[in-house]
């Protein structure tokens, strides 16, 4: 497919500018951005490897869109540096002068949430907007083919469905052979079924063309399932950056654990590689975390190895038994370390088809936290049913400071 070839050239070009051995397409250091007196980004660092799709994940209002707008050049950074393909586009350059490359010279493909197609132009004219007129014809046909909309060039944006509009917006962004494609919650306005399809298509198109992508989203599901790397944006900084599974398995702190999927955060007491909780004595997991700023951040040796701690137990790490039944939890790895049994009763039962999420109140008195359990299939449980829980390690624990 010729789109792949053309975009492949782009990717190589980006790599060449970067110099030998450097695979970073986009790099941000110490980025500050404030509006009036409200600080939005406070010294953010981010590295996006060439050819990857990196998701910026954060709740609404966390500054995701501001970051994207600074990358695109619509906003100017208050401080810090943005480098694309080895060239400083915002911030002090090598000779000390302040640089701000205007958006039209950055070669960034921007796909906003609403698509922002030009309503007065046909689909073909939209896709060809950024190309010199003599090169439009064949390129536009190719791009429409690539995004799965051949033959729709003569339509106007309002004659397209939401998903089609997003594909056109992507084709328009890819037309200029961008160094980086910025996707600002591009799937948020689509309904659930369509969203999954368009998401998968976009992922495939970007991967095929080898284009570097930055996807901004507040949907952790979307981030985990679409991106190669996920950067959690919090308080104007990247709180953690990791591959999706790493992020889920070893979140950097309790807040991130809660933000990425369901989490039981219970109190415990650390003691030499294990932790004592209401679910018994569980093994504590070891890991080293890589940050998106490049340097690996290892477990801090100076932290206390004993004493009170907050413990993360994922709902699928808890097995649930009813009277006279086998465990209905997810299959556990052989080397897991089961804790003690905990009895309780069901307070809420949420059925999701592929699994069920059950909230259990332990019989330990009113102060005991409700435990969330995820089971596969299993039987219908009504509130009040007596159950037994058993957790399997290893678990994560954060000592109290």
């Amino acid at each position, binding site marked *: 497919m010729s789109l792949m070839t053309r975009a492949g050239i782009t990717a190589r070009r980006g790599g060449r500018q970067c110099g030998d051995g450097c695979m970073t397409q986009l790099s941000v250091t110490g980025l500050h951005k404030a509006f009036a007196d409200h600080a939005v980004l406070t010294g953010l660092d981010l590295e996006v490897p060439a050819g990857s799709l990196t998701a910026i994940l954060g709740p609404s209002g966390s500054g995701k869109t501001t970051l994207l707008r600074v990358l695109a050049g619509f906003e100017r950074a208050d401080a810090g540096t943005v480098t694309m393909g080895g060239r400083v586009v915002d911030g002090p350059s090598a000779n000390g002068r302040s640089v701000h490359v*205007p958006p039209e010279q950055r070669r960034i493909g921007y796909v906003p949430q609403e698509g922002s197609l030009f309503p007065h132009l046909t689909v073909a004219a939209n896709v060809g*907007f950024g190309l010199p007129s003599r090169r439009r014809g064949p390129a536009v046909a190719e791009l429409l083919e690539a995004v799965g909309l051949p033959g729709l060039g003569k339509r106007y944006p309002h004659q397209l469905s939401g998903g089609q509009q997003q594909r056109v917006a992507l084709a328009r962004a890819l037309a200029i052979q961008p160094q980086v494609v910025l996707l600002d919650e591009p799937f948020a306005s689509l309904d659930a079924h369509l969203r999954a399809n368009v998401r998968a298509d976009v992922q495939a198109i970007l991967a095929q063309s080898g284009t570097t992508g930055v996807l901004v989203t507040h949907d952790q599901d979307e981030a985990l399932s679409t991106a190669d790397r996920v950067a959690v944006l919090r308080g104007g900084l990247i709180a953690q950056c990791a591959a999706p599974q790493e992020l889920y398995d070893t979140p950097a702190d309790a807040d991130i654990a809660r933000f990425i999927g369901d989490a039981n955060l219970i109190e415990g007491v650390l003691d030499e590689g294990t932790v004592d909780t209401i679910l018994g004595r569980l093994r504590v997991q070891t890991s080293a975390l890589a940050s998106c700023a490049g340097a690996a951040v290892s477990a801090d040796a100076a932290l206390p190895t004993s004493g009170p701690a907050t413990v993360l137990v994922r709902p699928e790490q808890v097995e649930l038994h009813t009277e006279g039944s086998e465990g209905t939890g997810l299959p556990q790895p052989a080397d897991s370390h089961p804790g003690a049994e905990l009895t309780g009763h069901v307070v809420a039962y949420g059925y999701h088809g592929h699994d069920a999420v059950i909230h259990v109140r332990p019989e330990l008195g009113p102060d005991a936290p409700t435990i969330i359990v995820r089971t596969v299939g299993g039987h219908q449980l009504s509130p009040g049913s007596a159950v037994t829980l058993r957790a399997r390690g290893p678990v994560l624990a*954060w000592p109290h400071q």
Partner: protein
Amino acid sequence: MTSPTVTTAPPATTGRVAVRARRPRLPAALTATSLLIAGVLALPLVFLLIEAHGAGTTEVVRLIFRRLTADLLWNTVRLTVVVTVLCAIIGTAAAWCVERTTLPGRRVWAVLVVVPLAIPDFVVSFGWASLWTWVQGFRGAVVVMTLAVYPLVYLPVAASLRSADPGQEEVARSLGAGRVRTFVRVTLAQARGAILGGCLLVALVLLAEYGAFEILGYQTFTTEIFSEFSVSFSVPAACALSLVLVLLSLLVLGGEGMLRGRGRVARSGPQVPRQLPRRRLGRATVPVLAGFGLLTALALGVPVGASVYWIFEGGAHAVSGESLPSAALHTGVYAAAAGLLDTAAALPVALLAVRYSGRMRHLLERSTYLVLAMPGVVAAFALSYFSERYAGGFLYQSTPLLVVCYSIMFFPLALTGVKASLARAPASLDEMARSLGQRRLAVLTRVTLRLAGPGLAAAFCLVFLSVVTELTATLLLIPTGVQTLATQFWAYETNLSYGQAAPFALVMIAVAAVPSYVLGRFFDRRRT
């Protein structure tokens, strides 16, 4: 111990960088142009103050605090209050019937109810007063002005009812509020801003009206300023009364701002273009239809009918004047010039208002408010006297001065239209175009102006329409020996040559109706 922990403290870079907190920068050229325009807009007021100063402060104070001022104040205020209230009732009721009920022939009524806007107030006044002698004084002024200006309430209220969130009414009903309670607490509350906005326009028109009141023999500030200046040549008196009139207009503006400020219409959720099921009129159909028929007959039928009647019955008069085509040409040229000038001038100000925020934007919006508070007679008087007395006759009674005066008077209209049109060309599309490699100028021509085009045409039409039906400032500033449709009509009318005046009235209506139709089409497209 192996608890994985990552600190979220900012990286070491924060220490060395000085953070430049930056506001979104206003483009210098845009700001400078806008300031220049604001300066020109403020000219009449500045001139007025200079002239008042020249006339002597004690003299002006003496002229303000006398019996005549009190009489004029009473006349002006009571008429403004009564007509504004009547217009609010008629305009809102008509809008509700057309937009929310099963009224037969809604589409036709929607047009007929608005057409009176294209008929100059002084033509409505002429139509009534030339047919019936009882139409004069306060009573006549109430009838004529209500029929002439109620569309100013109808239009915004109809638009607001059309776009209001239908869910709110349904929720109110489900919460146990009856029909009447729902209408008052939800429907009217939703349309409140529109009703107030319409009333503001009505009040400002009444404060500025000259021709209609002159025909009816009803004395207000505007008619008195006009005669003090052009008949008695008493500049200090005209100055003093102008100051009071401007103050009165500012009070109206301030009052509207205060009332509007308290209530805000919030709308949450997706903007689904859903319509409420229309209320069935049932047995009320016939009376409501009769009401619409009567309104159309009075507001549209009488002025048009009277003009046609006088063409046939007016007989031959010996009064001579400019020919119809020549007057129409002058009117068209002036109106087109003012329309172009205003649309072009409103563009930078509207760009600032729509795309940027901050103190500068606020200042500019305030300065357009000042223009609203300046009735045409005051603007014309200030410009004309200043050019004659202080500028050595520079541009005095010249075409440029007249066009500039029109442009100042109708700038707020153009600004409204241009702002609405720029809202159709959101900044996000500009940014999109820039990220696709287009420079600022290319973005302007390939995206912004293409999208804003229809709205700019609407702004032009709005100004064009207003200039065609303008009389007061035209009479004061028109170059010697030139006549427009309005002034020639006026010359015949004051000579009681109704037969010769009537064709000018009809042509004015026809000329003004074209841009009205274009405007209607433009605002109607928003439905979809």
